[in-house]
C-alpha cells in the first residue's frame, strides 16, 4: 500500500527536449485555444477600464487611452439598486452565506447517493435514479410554483435553509450521476477488499471512496459553486430582500431596462461577480491529481 499516498499528476511520455516537434505542436495548439477563450475576457477587461465616451467610439478591441478604475469602484460600491446605492458589496456576504452551506450540503447528499447507487444497490434504486436523471432535463421555470407550495408546507419558505434545500434538490440529478458513474469506474477489487476487512457503509465511504475521488469532488465543487453563486432566479424567488444574493445587484446593474447602459460598469460588475468561482477553479486545481496510484488495487 505504499503507493496509495503517492499521488501522481498527468502522465504520458515525459517531456524530453524543450523544442521537440511534439512540444511545439502541443503548446502551439494550447496557446491558440487559450487565445480563443481569452479574447472575450480581453474585451471585457479593456471595456471596463474605459470611460463611456471612449466606448461610444466603438472600437471594442482598442486598449483604453485613459485608464480609469472608476467603473470598478462604481460596480463594487456605488451602483444603485433602486434606493440602495452600495453596488455589489451589498449582496456579497449574502451570496457567501448562501453558497457555502448549499455547496456543502448538496455535494454531501449527492456523493452519498452516488456511492449507494454504485456500490450498495438496493431494489428499486434504478427506478429512483432514472427519475432523477429525468429531473436533470426539467426546465427550472416550471418547478417554481410547485416548489413554493412544498416550501410553504415545510414552513421554510423565505428562509436561507429553504434556499439551501432548493439548490440541493436541483443540483442532485447531475451530481448524483457524476458520483455514481465515477464510483462505478473505480476498480471493484478495492471495495471488495474493504468488505472482507469488515468495513461498513460509512467506513468505506470515508476511508476509501472519498480519498480516491478528489478530482470528481473538484468537478462537483466547480459545478455547484458556479451554479449557486451565479443563481438569480431561485435566490430572488425563494428569499427576501435582506438575504438577496449578489446576482440581484448584478442583474440590476446590467439589466436595467431603461436609461443609458454603462457598459464599462457592466463589465466590471461581471468580472467582479465571476472572481469567486474563478478563484475556486484555480485553487482547487491543486487537487486535480491522479486518484488511484499504481499498486493500490493489489494492496
Amino acid at each position: 500500500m505504499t503507493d496509495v499516498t503517492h499521488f501522481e499528476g498527468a502522465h504520458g511520455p515525459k517531456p524530453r527536449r524543450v523544442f521537440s516537434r511534439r512540444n511545439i505542436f502541443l503548446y502551439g495548439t494550447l496557446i491558440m485555444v487559450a487565445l480563443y477563450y481569452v479574447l472575450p475576457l480581453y474585451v471585457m477587461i479593456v471595456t471596463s477600464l474605459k470611460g463611456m465616451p471612449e466606448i461610444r467610439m466603438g472600437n471594442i478591441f482598442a486598449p483604453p487611452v485613459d485608464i480609469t478604475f472608476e467603473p470598478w469602484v462604481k460596480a463594487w460600491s456605488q451602483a444603485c439598486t433602486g434606493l440602495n446605492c452600495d453596488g455589489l458589496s451589498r449582496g456579497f456576504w449574502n451570496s457567501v452565506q448562501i453558497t457555502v452551506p448549499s455547496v456543502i450540503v448538496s455535494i454531501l447528499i449527492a456523493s452519498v447517493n452516488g456511492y449507494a447507487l454504485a456500490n450498495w444497490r438496493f431494489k428499486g434504486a434504478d427506478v429512483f435514479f432514472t427519475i432523477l436523471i429525468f429531473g436533470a432535463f426539467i426546465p427550472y421555470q416550471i418547478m417554481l410554483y410547485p416548489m413554493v407550495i412544498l416550501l410553504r408546507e415545510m414552513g421554510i419558505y423565505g428562509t436561507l435553509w429553504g434556499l439551501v434545500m432548493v439548490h440541493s434538490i436541483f443540483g442532485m440529478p447531475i451530481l448524483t450521476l457524476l458520483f455514481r458513474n465515477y464510483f462505478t469506474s473505480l476498480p471493484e477489487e478495492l471495495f471488495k477488499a474493504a468488505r472482507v476487512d469488515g468495513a461498513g457503509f460509512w467506513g468505506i465511504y470515508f476511508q476509501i471512496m472519498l480519498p480516491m475521488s478528489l478530482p470528481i469532488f473538484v468537478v462537483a465543487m466547480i459545478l455547484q459553486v458556479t451554479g449557486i453563486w451565479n443563481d438569480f432566479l431561485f435566490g430572488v424567488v425563494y428569499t427576501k430582500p435582506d438575504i438577496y444574493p449578489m446576482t440581484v445587484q448584478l442583474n440590476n446593474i446590467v439589466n436595467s431596462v431603461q436609461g443609458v447602459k454603462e457598459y464599462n460598469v457592466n463589465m466590471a460588475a461581471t468580472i467582479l461577480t465571476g472572481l469567486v468561482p474563478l478563484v475556486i477553479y484555480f485553487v482547487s486545481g491543486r487537487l486535480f491529481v491522479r486518484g488511484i496510484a499504481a499498486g493500490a488495487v493489489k494492496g
Partner: protein
Amino acid sequence: MKSIATLLAATALTATSAQAVDLEVTHWWTSGGEAAAVAEFAKAFTERTDHTWVDGAIAGSGGTARPIMISRITGGDPMGATQFNHGRQAEELVEAGLMLDLTDVAEAEGWTDIVFPSSLLDSCTIDGRIYCVPVNIHSWQWIWLSNDAFAKIDTPVPTNWDEFVAAGPKLREAGIVPLAMGNQAWQTAGAFDVLSIAIAGVDAWRKVVVEKDGAAAAGAEYAKVFKAAADARALRAGSNVQDWNLATNMVITGKAGGQIMGDWAQGEFAVAEKVAGTDYTCLPGLGVNEVISTGGDAFYFPKNGDPAVEAAQKELASVMLSKEVQVAFNLKKGSLPVRGDVDLSTANDCMQKGLAILAKGNILPSGDQSLSPDTQGQIEDLMTEFWANDSITAEDAQERYADIIANAD
C-alpha cells in the same frame, strides 16, 4: 424616532392600527431617473407616516417580477406593495382575493373626482371595488425626430408621418438610416400600435383592440396600416440595434432620422443635454392624430393578515396619490401625473404638448388595458416576424393579425 418605531413594530405582537411598520415595496425602476422618482415616494412615505419603506428593486420588468410576486404571495409571505402595469395583468390575483381592497381610502379621499383621466381608475376597478393606485401616465404615440439629420438633407423637419416617409429616400442617400428601431418584440409591436392609431384612426382602432372585431382588423382601414408598417419596415433597414435606448441614441447623434417610441425616450434626450424644439422634435400621434394612450404604472397591495400592515399599506396608497408627491415623482420620471389639478409649469416642451392633449381629452385606453397579455404576446410574435422578414407581405401579416384578434380572449 424611526428606529424606535421600527423597534416597536418588531417587538409588539398585538396589533394596533397606529403601529409603525416596515413596508417592503417591490418595483422594477432601477435606472437613474427611475430610481430618483421612486426616492420621492420613499421620502414622502417615511416623512409623512411613522412607517419605513424597505426597498425591493428588481431590474427586468414584468417577466422577472411576476414569478417573484406570485411566489411570494402564494408562499404566504407577500411584500407590502408591488408595482404592476395597470389593466388586465393583475385581474386574476384580485379575483383570487389576494389583493387588498382600497375602496374605503378611495372613497374617503374622493379618488373618482381627482384621478384624471378617469379611465385610469377604471382599470384598477373590478366589480366596483378599487384595488390599485395609478401613479403616472406614459404614452406611446410619439415620433422623435433629429433636427440635425433633416438639416443635413436641407429638408424642413417633417410635421407628420407622410412627410417623414417622403423624406426617407433623401435621408438614405445621405447615409442616414431614416427610421431607428430596436429589434425587441415589444418595440416593434408598440410601433405598430402607434401606426394603427395614427393611420386607421381611433374608431377603427377601438373596434379592433377594444371590441376585438376580426372583420375590422381584416378591413380596408387596417390594410392602410399594414401598408404603412411595410413602408416603415423598409425605412428601418440598417438599424442593427437591440435596445430602444440605442435606437434613440441614433436619433440623438443624427445617425437616424427618427424613432417611434414612447415618452420615456425624453429621458435619453435630457441626459444627452438636447433641447426639445431646437435639437429634436416630437410629434404626438405621428402628427396625424393627436391622441395619446394612457398606459402607465400602478401599485397593488397584496393582502396581509396583519391589520397594522394593512393600515400602512393604505397610508402608502394615499401618499402616492397626493398632490405634491405626484408632481415630484412625475417630474423625475418624465411621465404625466394622474391628476389634472396639479401645477406642472416646469415641464418641458414635449411634456407640455402631452398635457395639452390630455386636457383636451384626446385619450384612449392603452392596449394593456384591453388586450390580455397572452393576445399581446401573439401579436408580438407576429410583429417580430413581420419586421424582420421582408418576404412576409402586408397582406399576409394582416390576415394573421385578423385571425389573432378574432380569437382573442
